[in-house]
């Protein structure tokens, strides 16, 4: 990709959230990624948004109390 193909900060920031969420079509994802390689400021912002998303993702709990799990098992048994 040549420098003239760069999407620029405005377009990259507009798509940054969807980039972090992996919701962009491949071609747009690649364009934003290319811009992030050459723009320190946008890259820092992407790292911040990714880290915030990671912190939120860490709140997800796979664990459920044995009592709650048994309640659901017993419930389904009765179906």
């Amino acid at each position, binding site marked *: 990709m040549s420098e003239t193909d760069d999407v620029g900060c405005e377009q990259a920031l507009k798509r940054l959230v969807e980039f972090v969420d992996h919701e962009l079509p491949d071609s747009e994802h690649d364009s934003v990624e290319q811009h992030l390689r050459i723009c320190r400021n946008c890259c820092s912002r992407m790292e911040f948004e990714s880290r915030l998303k990671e*912190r939120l993702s860490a709140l*997800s709990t796979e664990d459920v109390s044995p009592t709650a799990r048994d309640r659901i098992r017993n*419930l389904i048994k009765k179906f």
Partner: protein
Amino acid sequence: MTISKEAFETQVLAILGPLHGVARRLTNNEADAEDLVAESITRAWQARASLADAGAFRAWVFRILNNTFISERRKTLARPREELLVDESGDEEGAFSIFERLHQPFLLWFANPEQEFLDKLLREDLDRALAALPEHYRVVVVLADVEGLTYGEIAEALDVPVGTVRSRLARGRNALQRTLWTVARDHGLQMSRAAGTRG
């Protein structure tokens, strides 16, 4: 083909943690969350014939959970339906970004105040900020950022277009960052950050 009882149980138990997590954040109460999950699973079993695609089980159950929450709350509050409809018209407070508040482009490469800010936030700060979000934003942020559903799955779970998911997510994250900023100010984090970066 309708899902078998064994397959239904296996799939439910595989997502029981996220189901409880979302239910807890909707009800803000452990006992109510357990009741909501149990009622949703009962309704899901009764409606199993409506599960068109076995691969979409997670979004389908979240949709039933969300609908069950709305209908149960409606009964409890005994409010007319109109009051429970989402009104986002007054929610525009303008964009807010913690990054823009803290980032200093001319700092040395190893100084990173915005990342340090995130590192200093406690799990409780994030829980509190999520709980403070208006419900129609909280559920989208929780499904996307805490439970990792795709935009398509969230649209299916909430029965709204993907465009609505995008706009609620943008506004919800905006509101979340605004709240986190306030939480941080209350904890004195911003001031320590400023002191640490100006020296």
